[in-house]
């Protein structure tokens, strides 16, 4: 490690020049177009853009060099994110592929898994996803019932998963399954790397109220995986899942160093309160301006807090569970934006504008998904439990399944 690291400023200037010469400019109209049912083309495009970044030496900025990354710091990534504003970036690969899955493999994977999966993701050849939640349980992730049974050197997987974000576009999944039913729930789980197209995997897409088809559910019918597919230890899958949950909270709150590029406009939807004020012809109304200002302030505070908490966790000033602070604040920001949008649109909420759906229509659809930001990636109720119990040290909620062998725990039907 005698090599000195490139300074952030030098990296920034190099990135600025390279982006100008190589990356396509961001097309706002295309971004605002209604989401197509079949977005296969978008995913191919994301892979192409990632390959372009890799060829130019700007892919995997915070991943180690051994796995085709650049081995640089979050400050370099932030500089790159700032410079990349206005360019088309493979943002779809950030979550969950890079910031959750590749980050977890980096924490827990074997050398081979790190080299093969992280390398392929950084090079734009593969996409990763998560098979975690199950139809039988939401917040109680460790109570899952997908089974992995040993068969000689292999494991045979049976069961089902849901809420797998963009799994249809992915090549590999981190899949959590139960390998031991005679021990308490957290101690009988194992994490596997599963090819999403493995024989025995059936995948469907779930339609959301805003028309989104980003989530999938999967059914496993005797899917066979080799022992080398195990990530971490057999029966030690909860430790791996905990890293995923940490990375998920961290990235949802804007604290991940593995997220590259930034959304062109803040917030969950592409329509901002200022857009809605404009479309409703109410931009001059002081009541409306105060609400627009409220949204701007909350967006800034969410960013500022993400930066502070990330630094605090890195320096040890805050415990890693403090990532839940970001998760909770981000949900508050998303809900506030949706609520302000409704109030700003006034009597026009629920109706289209500009001769079509328009900004007010998009705000209306956004409102139908208001709770999405408080549910995805672990509900805000769970985040509040984590903050009160793990950050503030308050007594844990009573659980009737604690220390009880899983096969004796009561389950719903």
């Amino acid at each position: 490690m005698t090599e000195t690291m490139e300074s952030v400023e030098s990296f920034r200037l190099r990135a600025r020049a390279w982006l100008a010469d190589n990356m396509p400019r961001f097309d706002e109209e295309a971004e605002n177009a209604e989401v197509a049912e079949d977005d296969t083309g978008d995913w191919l495009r994301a892979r192409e853009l990632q390959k372009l970044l890799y060829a130019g030496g700007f892919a995997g900025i915070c991943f180690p060099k051994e796995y085709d990354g650049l081995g640089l710091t979050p400050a370099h990534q932030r500089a790159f994110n700032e410079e990349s504003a206005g360019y088309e970036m493979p943002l779809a690969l950030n979550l969950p592929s890079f910031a959750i899955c590749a980050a977890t493999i980096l924490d827990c994977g074997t050398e081979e898994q790190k080299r093969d999966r992280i390398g392929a993701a950084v090079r734009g050849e593969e996409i990763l996803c998560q098979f975690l939640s199950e139809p039988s349980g939401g917040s109680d992730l460790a109570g899952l019932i997908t089974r992995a049974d040993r068969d000689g050197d292999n494991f045979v997987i049976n069961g089902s998963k849901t809420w797998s974000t963009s799994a249809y576009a992915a090549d590999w999944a981190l899949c959590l399954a139960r390998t031991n039913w005679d021990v308490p729930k957290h101690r009988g789980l194992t994490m596997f790397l599963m090819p999403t197209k493995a024989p025995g995997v059936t995948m469907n897409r779930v339609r959301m109220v805003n028309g989104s088809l980003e989530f999938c559910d999967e059914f496993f019918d005797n899917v066979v995986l080799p022992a080398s597919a195990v990530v971490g230890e057999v029966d030690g899958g909860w430790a791996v899942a905990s890293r995923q949950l940490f990375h998920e909270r961290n990235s949802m709150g804007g604290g991940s160093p593995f997220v590259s590029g930034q959304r062109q406009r803040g917030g969950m939807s592409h329509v901002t309160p200022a857009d809605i004020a404009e479309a409703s012809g109410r931009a001059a109304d002081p009541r409306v301006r105060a609400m627009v200002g409220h949204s701007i302030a909350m967006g800034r505070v969410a960013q500022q807090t993400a930066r502070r908490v990330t630094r605090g966790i890195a320096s040890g000033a805050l415990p890693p569970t403090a990532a839940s602070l970001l998760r909770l604040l981000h949900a508050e920001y998303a809900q506030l934006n949706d609520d302000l949008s409704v109030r700003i649109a006034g009597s026009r909420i629920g109706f289209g504008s500009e001769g079509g759906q328009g900004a007010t229509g998009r705000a209306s659809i956004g409102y139908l998904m208001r709770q999405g930001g408080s549910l995805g990636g672990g509900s805000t109720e769970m985040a509040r439990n984590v903050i009160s119990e793990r950050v503030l040290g308050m007594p844990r909620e009573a659980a009737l399944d604690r220390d009880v062998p899983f096969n004796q725990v009561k389950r719903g039907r």
Partner: protein
Amino acid sequence: MELELSSDQKLFQTSARRLLEKEYPLDRIRGMKDGEPRWSRDWWQQGAELGWAASIVPEELGGGSVSGEGVRDLGVLAEELGSGVAPGPLLPVNVVLTALVETHGAGPDHTAEIEALVAGESVASWAVYEPDGEWSPLAPALTATPDGDGYVLDGVKDRVQEAEQADLLLVTAQTPDGVAQFLVPTATEGVTVTPQWNVDLSRSFGEVSFSGVRVGADALVGAPGADEVIERQLQIAVLIQCAEVCAVLDRVFAMAVEWAFDRYSFGRPLASYQELKHRFADMRTWLEACHATTQAAAEAIQDRSPEAAELASVAKSFVGDKSLLIVQDCVQIHGGIGVTWEHDLHLFLRRATIDQALYGTPEDHRLRLADLAAATPKG
């Protein structure tokens, strides 16, 4: 507010805490009587010797900061003093110094006044609010009419902090050439200070009337129309408020957490009830966010970033709103004892209430944010 402090900053903090606790512990503040001076000039001078009025003043004018980043040091100090709801003219003196330092060399010379303020020998306050007005520093009704070599000031200011103990007032006034600021001794003929009731036990405010007050042209601070100086004063005022409120929230929240662990009902600590745990989680999140946005504002103001105005308003609107939510919910969690005179909570609630009100309410700052965004091209 700051995540990491240098050892010099820590020393700056500790010396401030010692001086505050020696003279004005919370029990003394609780016992303050109406009309009693909130602080002694001697005490303030000891504070000035520790650098309380020096950090944003350049060394050649008698100032100096412990870290070389004077605005951030001032934030650190405001936080330390805020955690004890300190009395004293920290905010008014530093805001007036901001104006004097910003205009130094660009108008009449005020070097002597700066040096006296830094040394704690003199005390000054910003006379900006007016009895009928909300926050609108660039639209004063008080007039300064040119008269011979000087000006005549007529009008009324109110909510002037520590006006009774101030030697000098920085008066924001309308002139034919735009808004101007004048440094006026309170002893000048025609200046009358009347105490004004306020809810904060460790602060005092006054109404100040100016009736045909003659000042020389050398009373001008900078030149008329220097709106950016007033903007800088606002930023410094907001930073001091937000930093001290962060400390207030730290104290109040810590009290509520301790109470939740110690207090048992139905055989279990309050801290074990999920309904309360979830409220604590929300408050803990907002607390971190208050520190984050205050720190970001301090950095931007320190660096004179083009975003400083926006980030000051982001901080003030967020901290102003959340501070009251947090303090009042901590009162609720304490139960009846939280609204008794004996408990310390109300001392902090008083400070938070006044701090969110002055130098722009949260709503004023939200309007400003919308205006700043409308004035900036998208992208």
